[in-house]
């Protein structure tokens, strides 16, 4: 045996590797071509924003392709499911990654938010602590926004997601004032009502909402309340789960763990235009310049 022969021989030669790689690439191409030829599964639309990267034209093109009232999965949702989100505030670090992910996913314009993490200081010095409150549409069981819409432009799907048809909305704003959570807003680009739709365009294809996907601490979890193994259903059984403003009777399906009392109902601050505190502090009613 020569010295060279004594070296360990690889299991796969370079030629074998190239041949395998070629096979994988060719197989992938064939699969992709077959998928394209067969089209999307029934009731699903391949996401293809027609507006390209232009902001105004491309705004919410993904959701637009799905959310209309022409029937199918976009209208009905997935029957048998009841989507819910679990927000574990013990894990939220206020990084706003979810805010950014939502902006990217849904092309939400500047100055308005489908989701946001409110960052507040709770209690008084020296006992102060930071509190983070991720906020989004609560996809209520009894959505008060749907009840006041005169144009049938917003509705609750069978899977519980409350969605908006931007082509039908007349922009009257009734739903914006009808929501107790400030989750709705008037979109300055589309001139219609807008809000979180649980990333319906994603969940209809088996994906997670963008905010859940990107949450670095795992504070946001998404699942089906009808599935006992899903994080929200499990939390309902095991943890002290709370919702925002339970007195409204809207029955939200965005569930919170570790929600401080101060954040659950009416947020406690009073930097109002006129208040006893401001009078006591010697501040005139007219020098108020927004939030403090």
């Amino acid at each position, binding site marked *: 045996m020569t010295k060279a022969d004594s070296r360990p021989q690889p299991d796969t030669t370079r030629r074998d590797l190239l041949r395998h790689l070629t096979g994988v690439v060719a197989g992938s191409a064939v699969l992709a071509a077959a998928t394209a030829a067969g089209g999307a599964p029934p009731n699903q639309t391949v996401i293809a924003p027609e507006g390209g990267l232009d902001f105004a034209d491309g705004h919410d093109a993904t959701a637009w392709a799905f959310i209309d009232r022409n029937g199918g999965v976009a209208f009905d949702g997935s029957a048998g499911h009841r989507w819910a989100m679990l927000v574990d505030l013990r894990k939220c670090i206020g990084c706003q990654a979810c805010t950014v992910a939502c902006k990217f996913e849904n092309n939400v314009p500047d100055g*308005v938010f489908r989701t946001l993490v*409110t*960052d507040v200081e709770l209690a008084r010095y020296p006992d102060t602590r930071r509190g983070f409150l991720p906020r989004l549409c609560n996809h209520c069981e009894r959505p008060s926004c749907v009840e*006041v819409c*005169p144009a049938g432009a917003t509705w609750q799907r069978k899977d519980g997601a409350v969605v908006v048809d931007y082509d039908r909305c007349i922009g009257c704003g009734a739903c914006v004032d009808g929501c107790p*959570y400030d989750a709705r807003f008037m979109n300055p680009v589309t001139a219609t009502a807008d809000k979180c739709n649980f990333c319906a365009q994603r969940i209809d294809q088996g994906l997670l909402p963008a905010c859940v996907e990107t949450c670095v601490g795992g504070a946001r979890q998404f699942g089906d309340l009808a599935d006992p193994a899903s994080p929200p259903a499990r939390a309902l059984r095991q943890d002290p789960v709370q919702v925002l403003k339970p007195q409204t009777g809207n029955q939200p399906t965005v569930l919170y763990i570790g929600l401080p009392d101060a954040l659950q109902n009416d947020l*406690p*601050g009073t930097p109002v235009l006129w208040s006893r505190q401001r009078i006591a502090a010697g501040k005139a009613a007219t020098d*108020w310049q*927004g939030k403090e």
Partner: protein
Amino acid sequence: MEPHEVYWEYINVVHQRPLTPLLANYSAMVGIAGAIFLFWGWARLRPVESDGAERRFALPVAVALMIAGLTNPILEVLQPGRVMNMYLFGWDVAGSAIIKFGVTLLPLFALLCWWLGAAALRPEIEAALHGRPAAVSAAGDLLTLWVRHFDPLAASCCRKAIISLGLLLAVFAILYSGVFLMTEHGIVFWDSAFLPVVFFASAVAGGAGMLGLIVPLGRHLTGNAGEETASGPYAGLLAASVAGGALWLLWLQFTGHFGSVEVRRALDLVNGSRRGLAWGWWFGLGAVLPTLLLAVSPLRRIALFRYIASAGAVIGAFALRFAVLEIGQAVPKSGAGQYLYAPPAGMLSDLVLNWVYFVGWIALFWLLLPYRVRARGAATTIA
């Protein structure tokens, strides 16, 4: 934590609220139109003869108010081209969406006002169209909804039914915007049964005030100044002003005791930076001043004071709605802070133009309708 404890928000967003002063304008105009019909219809149902000038002048004013009022939501919605969607879609959830009923019943009410208003002028219309070319007569009939051929006020079979239907629609028109705001679940200050009731009282006062201004003016402009002695709707104005003011105080008292933190923030605005609007323009000018001027007998006898009381009630009806709208929306739903409300660009000019528009419609009606014919011809008032 105490509800009024100061705390800090490092990051928060409060979305802009969508409803503008145009909604207050709309609410006031439609409410006043409904109240005008209440006075008119009630007088027609009573066996005794009432003010003939009110009978003939009132309903065209209500129609002008309805037309001008209904332009406000069209100006306000961001997609006015899709307003038709309200007629076509959304009936599956129309149970509490009162807009669905408003878009149908309010135009119907305006049409009924026009029909009955023309019927109240039937003798004059007949005289004006008599002997005219066929085309002019046909156009006149179309414009007056054929009251020459079927007079709903003279038909014994259905007179009371038609007026009663009108009264129901009038009550709906008055209550409509108040109920709409009350069902806006997200604004806790509005989420009170007091709101439509206070709106109702102020609209009735505003309607009486509008009649107190328009009827003498119309009588003067059409040369019928000496025709009849008007007692005017001042008793109704007085009662509605007292009721409106009392209900307003009761509402604030009740909500101050039982309301949540959001409501108490709203009350801070009522008694704070918006006190001029809420207490001055609405309560002072719209409720207290008419009460004083009309309850004190020597003051009531002076025509100028009656007109001031009437104008105060009309302005107060608008101010109440503006105050409630602005204060309700100024309280954020997701944290501390208040808005410094600034109407969108052009909104104030829209408001002023809308009232000019209303005056223009009255002028058009008074030009079109034959108010003067009867003064030249028959001298008797036809009930």
